[in-house]
């Protein structure tokens, strides 16, 4: 194994900078997601704070070289706190003309542009619908262009291995990665380790990828292509052991943790759907934790099997995205009616219908809150960052078990695929919440309630003396017998509502970040947290005036008890959302506040700059 000391020492000037934003763009067959995640892993291991934004097409392989086939991976890394993947990029790696065309608008003036010169032939340009070669017509003069024969140089480096040209060309992404490692003075070791692990059964392919990586690095060293290389020191993060964590990984780890903390077997019923499938993939690996993963025949079977598993005593969960949520609707009502614990994760994506499967959106909030027939309240939580998904999932499980209710967790495509450093908690930092199945037949009634939580007992099949029947038909409180009496129905509707409303006793009061009162309160939820924080930090750094608070809601049902009072402390309320205005609808209805909406429905997160402009518009510069 190579070490940093063995890699060539750069003779170029080294400049220490605070942060950089880099984007790898290429054809979806070019391995851009792997390239980006390798770079991310390396800088995270070095100690930078990171935020990532993988952006790829819904098609597995659109025709090679075309505009719809472009896949990108953006990374913001820094020696200080990072909250977003960055608006504009400092470095763009474009592996073909289509990637250049689709991404150039986001490159800063004088930014570094690295292109694979070998893929700018006439045919490539035609596929990207370009009439002239931008490498030759001076249209790129405002950038620092590095036109590199990545394909030819990769082939040169690998030709002695005796593998075919196609296999050699598949390594050219690692040539580009090697260049970036040189540019930012990073060790190739973590990627060498990854290659050895990934291709342990294909040593020749492992060798090819390592050689391509080294060739890219050495190319920069030998040619002194770049006048300068950069150094971004480690970030000053809270002490502890860290790892890089994506939202979908965090959800999976959160569930395994919750099951252990509850002392229950974890059961996942799920049906593959973008962008939630990775949760199923992750959890299906954890059989040593006793995790049971059931890939059902459809979304309905995914949730109803989970309801069955919950009835049988497991910590039961189901994971999906918007279209799947729609299919689960009736079963959610069944879980409400039978008062069984269940956690449903909706990794939101652009909609309606199939919509934008790989793009992000926050438009399922009202569906989560109200999308069921009749009066069927469900607690709803939303995660705000990739690693927050872990904590939100643990909290959702705790609430589901304590109150015997289904709980919905909202994440989205941006959180699911984005990654950030996560300080790994020790196990005693996470409180246990042992679940208790009913055992005692004396005085047992299936709907006899705990006076504080209104939860009914969890009596599971196999327990002698507790035989009882539950189901979707209205039942008499206490006995659980079928009951159609008018007053009983009203009573039961009110009890189910009171039970969910009562979860508020478990929710901390809302405390805005920043000024506790003043000119403007930004109220938001979910994945917009990073962009809003960055915008407010940006404003503060510029020394702009105004008393501004930022309240990011984790609990969307019930809402924190003091929310109405907090809203009154500010002159203006701004609610930025990646939808047409859903939280604002709830706030206006519930608190009669004249809140102002800010809405973006483009399948992409807010840019820091967009928020700064809006804030300026509301309270001035």
């Amino acid at each position, binding site marked *: 194994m190579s070490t940093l000391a063995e890699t060539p020492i750069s003779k170029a000037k080294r400049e220490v900078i605070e942060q950089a934003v880099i984007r790898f763009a290429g054809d979806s067959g070019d391995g851009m997601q792997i390239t980006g995640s390798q770079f991310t892993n390396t800088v*995270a291991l070095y100690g930078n704070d990171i935020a990532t934004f993988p952006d790829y097409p819904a098609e597995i392989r659109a025709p090679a070289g075309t505009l719809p086939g472009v896949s990108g991976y953006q990374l913001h890394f820094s020696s200080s706190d990072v909250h977003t993947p960055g608006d504009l990029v400092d470095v763009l790696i474009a592996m073909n003309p289509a990637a250049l065309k689709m991404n150039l608008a986001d490159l800063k003036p004088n930014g570094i542009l690295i292109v694979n010169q070998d893929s700018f032939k006439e045919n490539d340009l035609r596929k990207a619908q370009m009439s002239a070669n931008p490498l030759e017509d001076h249209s790129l003069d405002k950038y620092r262009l590095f036109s590199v024969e990545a394909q030819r140089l990769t082939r040169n480096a690998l030709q002695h291995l005796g593998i075919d040209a196609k296999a050699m060309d598949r390594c050219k992404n690692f040539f580009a990665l090697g260049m970036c490692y040189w540019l930012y003075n990073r060790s190739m070791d973590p990627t060498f380790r990854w290659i050895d692990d990934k291709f342990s059964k294909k040593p020749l392919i492992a060798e090819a990828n390592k050689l391509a990586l080294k060739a890219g690095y050495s190319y920069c060293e030998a040619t002194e292509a770049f006048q300068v290389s950069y150094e971004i020191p480690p970030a000053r993060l*809270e002490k502890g052991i860290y*790892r890089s964590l994506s939202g979908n990984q965090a959800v999976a780890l959160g569930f395994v943790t919750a099951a252990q903390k509850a002392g229950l077997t974890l059961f996942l019923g799920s049906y593959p759907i973008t962008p939630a499938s990775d949760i199923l993939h992750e959890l299906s690996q954890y059989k*040593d934790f006793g995790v*049971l993963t059931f890939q059902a*025949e459809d979304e309905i079977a995914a949730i109803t099997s989970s309801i069955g598993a919950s009835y*049988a005593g497991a910590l039961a969960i189901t994971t999906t995205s918007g279209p799947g949520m729609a299919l689960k609707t009736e*079963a959610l009502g069944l879980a409400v009616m039978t008062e069984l614990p269940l956690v449903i994760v909706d990794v939101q994506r652009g909609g309606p219908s199939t919509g934008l499967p790989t793009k992000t959106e926050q438009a399922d909030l009202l569906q989560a809150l109200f999308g069921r027939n009749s009066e069927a309240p469900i607690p709803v939580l939303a995660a705000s960052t990739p690693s927050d998904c872990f904590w939100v999932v643990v909290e959702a499980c705790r609430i589901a078990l304590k109150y015997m209710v289904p709980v919905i967790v909202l994440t989205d495509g941006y959180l699911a695929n984005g990654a950030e450093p996560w300080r790994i908690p020790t196990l005693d930092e996470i409180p246990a919440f042992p679940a208790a199945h009913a055992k005692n037949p004396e005085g047992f009634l299936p709907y006899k309630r705990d006076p504080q939580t209104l939860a009914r007992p969890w009596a599971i099949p196999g327990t002698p003396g507790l035989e009882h*029947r539950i*189901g979707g038909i209205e039942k008499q409180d206490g006995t659980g017998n079928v009951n159609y009496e008018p007053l009983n129905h009203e009573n039961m509707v009110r009890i189910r509502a009171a039970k969910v409303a009562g979860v508020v006793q478990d929710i901390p009061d809302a405390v805005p970040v920043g000024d506790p009162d003043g000119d403007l309160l930004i109220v938001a939820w979910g994945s917009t947290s990073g962009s809003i924080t960055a915008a407010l930090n940006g404003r503060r750094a510029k020394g702009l005036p105004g008393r501004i608070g930022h309240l990011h809601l984790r609990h969307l049902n019930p809402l924190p008890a003091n929310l109405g009072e907090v809203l009154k402390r500010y002159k203006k309320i701004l609610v930025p959302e990646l939808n047409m205005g859903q939280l604002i609808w709830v706030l206006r209805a519930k608190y009669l506040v004249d809140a102002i909406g800010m809405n973006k429905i483009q399948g992409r997160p807010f840019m820091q700059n967009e928020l700064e402009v809006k804030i300026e518009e509301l309270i001035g510069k």
Partner: protein
Amino acid sequence: MTTDTLPVLTKKDFQTDQEVRWCPGCGDYAILAAVQAVFPELGIPREKFVVVSGIGCSSRFPYYMNTYGFHSIHGRAPAVATGIKIANPELDVWVATGDGDALAIGGNHTIHALRRNVGVKVLLFNNRIYGLTKGQYSPTSEFHKKTKSTPYGSPDRPFNPVSLAIGAESTFVARSVDVFQQHLKDTLKHAAAHKGSAFIEILQNCNIFNDGAWTTLTEKDARSEKIIQLEHGKPLVFGKNRDKGIRRLPDGDIEVVTLGGDITEKDLIVHNAHHPRPSYAFLLSHMEHRPGFPTPIGVLRAWDDLPRYEDVMNEQVQEVIAKKGPGDLASLLRSGDTWEVK
């Protein structure tokens, strides 16, 4: 657990205090009576039984069984039962469903539970009509049948439930009739003894919306001519005078023959319910659609050599634990590349 440590259970132990609310004269009463008579004889503690249902008249079944019971939503009982079975393979899970519940809205769950060989027993009450919604045609209603929703006759061609179950390669497929009480109990016992998926179609009368649903088969004068009772190891004989049988043709097809003269029982097919392949059972299941052929009842297929789904799934967990040891949460959270901030 051995049976001699069990309390002796009776039919009464499986009756609930709930008033049974099927229409007087409904075939469901007979099915309830048969199930309540059979459960105490199975040597299984009462708390291990779970009866799961969907929606429809038949799906009220769990409320009348003093076991664990789950009256779920329309069509989803097989999926709920699958979740229960995976979470606790020790339970004895029975699904009560109807022709609309299992074959229309829940068709997908039915075939997938069967092809996975989940160890649940599916009792499909087939009255060829939607009863609870007051008389629309169902997926088993006859072609051209006039109902409330098909005043000019149904354009649908019906499913044959046992053919469908065999097509899904259910490892146990049987058919019985509400009014044949002893046959029904015997069939239920066969199903109870089967470890994998068991599917029983129970021909059932709806005396309100489809009275006489099966009388062409069940009326006393006709039944021995119209029905053939399958028994494993016995030749396929039927008829009032037991003078007809089913014989294999050289091309693999079958024909009805009259016994006598050159043709004896030795020429007939000897019923083999335990055949590992489903094609013979499918042939039997389909013969009722042909003129002159009888409708088979009894066990068409009972091949129990396939591991149950829930066992495969739980064994995978045990195998991984045996190989890797029980998972350590702290190490899991720290998996992959980590770094320390000091």
